[in-house]
């Protein structure tokens, strides 16, 4: 890998030489194309501002990736704070009305299915489900195993399976709503 003089640092050349590496690094951790693009851009801008301080001690790619790593860490922290707020609290009030009423999502179903970001979000939300709930949901809903087979495999009753699947649906919907259209504080009828 090259170790150029500090004066020769050039952001468009960075894109040609290190764009793929930065992209793979970002997409591998964030798994959202739009966010990965923002983070790579923020990295290039930060590198541009700091380029006079780059002394060629590390090679250029290592330097850029270290900046990207910090940008990703910042992003994940922000995201966690934001999602913490959305996931917090029960879905329903003790009376059974919505604590936070589901709001209409901005994109229609077919358009959403066509967006790569949707699938990344869906997988990310699946990954956040509590383990027992996730296992039942993936077997029953994603792999579409027969209810009896899932009950047998997990050694749970049919009623318990339904509770887990229903819980997973609620959590998944809420997780995606947090990303696509945060629910509003709306009362049921």
């Amino acid at each position, binding site marked *: 890998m090259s170790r150029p003089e500090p004066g020769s640092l050039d952001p468009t050349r960075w894109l040609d030489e290190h764009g793929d590496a930065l992209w*793979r690094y970002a997409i591998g951790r964030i798994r959202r194309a739009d966010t990965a693009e923002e983070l790579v851009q923020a990295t290039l801008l930060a590198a541009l501002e700091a380029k006079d301080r780059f002394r060629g001690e590390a090679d250029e790619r290592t330097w850029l990736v270290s900046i990207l790593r910090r940008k990703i860490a910042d992003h994940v922290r922000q995201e966690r704070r934001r999602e913490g707020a959305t996931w917090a609290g029960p879905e329903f009030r003790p009376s059974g009305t919505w604590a936070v009423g589901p709001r209409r999502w901005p994109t229609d179903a077919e358009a959403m299915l066509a967006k790569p970001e949707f699938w990344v979000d869906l997988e990310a939300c699946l990954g956040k489900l509590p383990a027992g709930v996730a296992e039942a949901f993936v077997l029953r809903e994603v792999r579409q195993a027969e209810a009896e087979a899932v009950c047998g495999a997990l050694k749970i009753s049919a009623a318990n399976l339904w509770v887990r699947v229903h819980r997973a649906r609620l959590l998944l919907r809420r997780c995606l709503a947090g990303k696509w259209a945060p629910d509003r504080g709306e009362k049921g009828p």
Partner: protein
Amino acid sequence: MKKSVNEAWRVLRMPCREYAALVSRELDGPLPLLSLAALRTHLLVCRSCRNFARQIRFLHTAVRRLPERGPASDEGMPEEVRGRLRARMNEIQP
């Protein structure tokens, strides 16, 4: 007769939490007629539950398509992304 009137009254007075459960149950199989009628009526008047139902049904369809989608690709930066970033870099540092 009295029993079924009581049952109808109970179903009609259910809170959204119970209707959300009915929306979910309906994905797993047909609902009893009374529950189905009550759910349809409730969805007409409750926007939150209507949104919920639409989203839950959508997710039910979407997750079934997950297995046919492979893991995220490890290809390089897409050309359109590179183009946009290059344009922005040139704006800042012509």
